[in-house]
């Protein structure tokens, strides 16, 4: 590939390359951020299914053992992560391959295995890192796990007292990763 000169300015003729503004996307396969009291790694291979409508009926049909979790709550195993009163992301150990569309039971299903990037934030300072990303009252919690996290909409809950899980729209995952990389400490 020829060497490319990156120039500044907005004139098309001068060849401004907007990529210069943005840190390249990480190689997710080996990506990790490790600090003395917290660490971050991407999680691959989880099943994610977006559900709307009768969530109880959907859970009974798709993952009857799934626990339900909202903001900062601890979910164990398969979990129904609430987004709104009638919307949730079903997170499972493996993709469900549930058919997309309408169920006669009264819920809508869409595959979301690749829609959200999943990042695990662990360590005794995980809570402190989250506090930099959001002004939400995590201890007070919320039935909905959706919040603005570092300025973008995410789902935030825990899988252990000091292990948080963040789901972020895939297009914003490189931004959030870069944001976490630059957290001090």
């Amino acid at each position, binding site marked *: *590939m*020829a*060497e*490319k*000169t990156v120039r500044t300015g907005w004139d*098309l*003729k001068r*060849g*401004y*390359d*907007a*990529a210069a*503004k*943005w*840190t*390249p*996307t990480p*190689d997710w396969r080996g990506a990790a951020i490790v600090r003395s009291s917290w660490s971050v790694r991407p999680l691959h291979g989880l099943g994610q299914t*977006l559900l*709307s*409508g*009768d969530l109880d009926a959907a859970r009974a049909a798709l993952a009857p053992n799934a626990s339900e979790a909202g903001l900062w709550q601890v979910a164990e195993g398969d979990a129904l992560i609430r987004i709104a009163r*009638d*919307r949730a992301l079903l997170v499972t150990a493996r993709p469900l391959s549930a058919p*997309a*569309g*309408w169920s006669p039971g*009264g819920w*809508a*299903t*869409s*595959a*979301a*295995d*690749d*829609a*959200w990037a999943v990042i695990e934030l662990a360590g005794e300072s995980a809570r402190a890192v989250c506090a930099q990303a959001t*002004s939400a*009252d995590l201890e*007070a919690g919320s039935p909905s796990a959706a919040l603005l996290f*570092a*300025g*973008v909409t995410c789902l935030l809950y825990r899988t252990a007292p000091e292990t948080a899980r963040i789901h972020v*729209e*895939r*297009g*914003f*995952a*490189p*931004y959030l990763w*870069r*944001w976490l990389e*630059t957290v001090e400490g």
Partner: protein
Amino acid sequence: MLVVGAGPAGLSAARAAAASGGSVILVDDQERLGGALLHRHAEIDGRPGRIWAASCVEALRAAGHRVLASATAFGVYDHNLVGVWQRRFGRPDALWQIRAGRIVVAAGAIERPLVFPDNDRPGVMSAEAALFYLRRHDLLVGERIVVATNNDKAYAVARALATAGARVAIADMRASAAPQTAEGLSVLPGARVTAVEGEDGVEAVRVGGRRVEADCLLVSGGFTPTVHLHAQAKGKLRYEESLAAFVPAERLPGLVVLADGHAAGGGRGVAARSVTADDSYAIEPAWPGRAGKARQWIDFQNDVTVKDVELAARENFRSVEHLKRYTTLGMATDQGKTSNMNGLAAMAAITGRTIPGTGTTTYRPPFVPVPLPVLAGRRRGEFFNPVRRLVLEAEHRAAGAVFREYGGWLRPGWYGAGRAEDEIAREARTARETVGILDGSPLGKIEVIGPDAGALVDYNSYQTISTLKPGRIRYGFMLTEGGVIYDDGVVSKVSDEHYVVSCSSGHVPGVVARLEEWRQDRFDPTRVFVHNSTPQWATLTTSGPRARDLVAMLGLGLSLSDEALPHMAFADTAFDGAPARVARVSFTGDRSYEVSVPSSKAAALNRAMTEAARAVGGGLLGSEALLLLRAEKGYIIAGKDTDGTTMPHDLGITGPRDRRQGEYVGKRSLFTENALRPDRQQAVGLAVDGDVPLPTGAHAVETVAGRRRSIGFVTSSYASPTLGRPIGLALVVNGLSRMGEEIELVHLGKTMRAMVAPACAFDPGGERLNG
């Protein structure tokens, strides 16, 4: 516990809270902590106030509590979230967002000015400020000083200044004031300031009918408690006659405005005991009188005088909220700190109401102006307004892409290190001659699911959608409620209960929002749902005469005959063990296939398609070449080739307006007088002689009665490598009736000519869609 203010009350509260075992954050807007203890004499627990304050701070820090100096609590937000701006010397300022279990507001009080003629003269200043200068900076503000007051607090100031060597006279507005104090100060009882003499500063003060030579006039109109944080938290206020001030009328959950610091801190430990000579605060209100010849300033920051308040009353802006907006009283930096009480008291007097009957304006954050960089915090550079990133970004970088931001996404503008125009033209030619591959992943893929899905997509669209057969696709517009084109796109029908709305990349959040809004407001929200599946799928579009050959090489197990998969149809299949969808839609006018796979399969699909493209002589296609190709066909980009007035019939598309039954968003607005106006701007093409494209944005003009006026503008303009000539799109008044007409255009003083032509400049019969 968050304690706001490190004066005696705040320190007492913090000390008691710490003694109770709580975790304390103490913030104060001053660099040195102690509040009034730093300039007023006091003895606490047998020690000078300032020593006591320093020991409290030291003890708090030693016990691990956080003490922030130069830190202003500027606002209380939802659920008692407090914003604190901290000035940090040698380092960037910090924004603290503190959500405390309990907030103690010990923010003190602000001395009010007195209102009299020429009270803005240099040398007229707050009495408390003079004491501050004296005790903290050893600065005496004058040698011959008049202290005008209506309360006892100013006497300590006068004594201190006299002790420092100034000649001090006290003009006490209260008739009951003693004419002589023990310290030998001269006191004029019942004396009001009526004038200030001096050109550039104070030379004399007229007070109580006398002329007193002075070089400084200190004023103290009483103290206004700093209740802003309480009021921002929706706390009510009540007027306290004995203080001539508004004070909190109620306790708010989790927020205390101090009367007793020790009690507010939990009451543990021994309360501090203070001895001070400055405790007395007897006051008689001294509110503004009527306007006279000279100006009497109420709001020094916004230049509001008594006369302005009287004018507001005459104009019937008598509510304090109207007064504020009419005069700007208390706005901006003041936020009611010094002006509110005098302003509302003046209005109360003018209108014959009481002060509590007149009320106060609403206190809003921020308490002080906070620099925008502080609020921005880390949201700068690439953390400000981040773009969405393609799953295949690394592959595009490796392929030599030059990126641009399109609709909130970072996307390849073109590929290659040559001149941009050359690379773009090369890509466009390749796509027309063989095949091009475009990363179309950001295009909207919004699923509408449920028994009422058809009704919702119909309501959302200018064109009826639900009459499609499953597996078919329809192009259409989405209109605003004003009938203006919001976006265009295609809708795929999966089943009667499942549709996929595709829209422009930059419009995805907006289209999701409008679908959700109508779902909730017009439909039974249990019968239809909207899922934004855009990030789930990566879409690579292949377009050109060899597109079918390319897709055939992917081995998708699909029949690609035009009978099995005609234009505007789709088919579901599998790729690399994952579900895949192949849709025949075209934004270039050539045969095109959109292949969508889960994002995790994007790299594999990209490899396969790139190899296949190479085999048939194709190449990669950036967004700039796509924009060019679609312009050759006259395909619009909503927001670029339309503006905030363009309706479907301005593009010559009138069928749904004229024939469609039932409601849809924007329908009613298509029949208004304005919508039916005969001189609307309509979308057309422009043909140009020569080889220089028209400047985008150039105005089409016509001369009427010797005056030139704009009749439209160029919306898109390119040098077409396919046609070997420039092409253009424009919005022109009555454009559709001007076909073949030569029009004049102007741009930055240059005049050009072009001929109005059909928007579609290439393959008008559409043969290449199946070519």
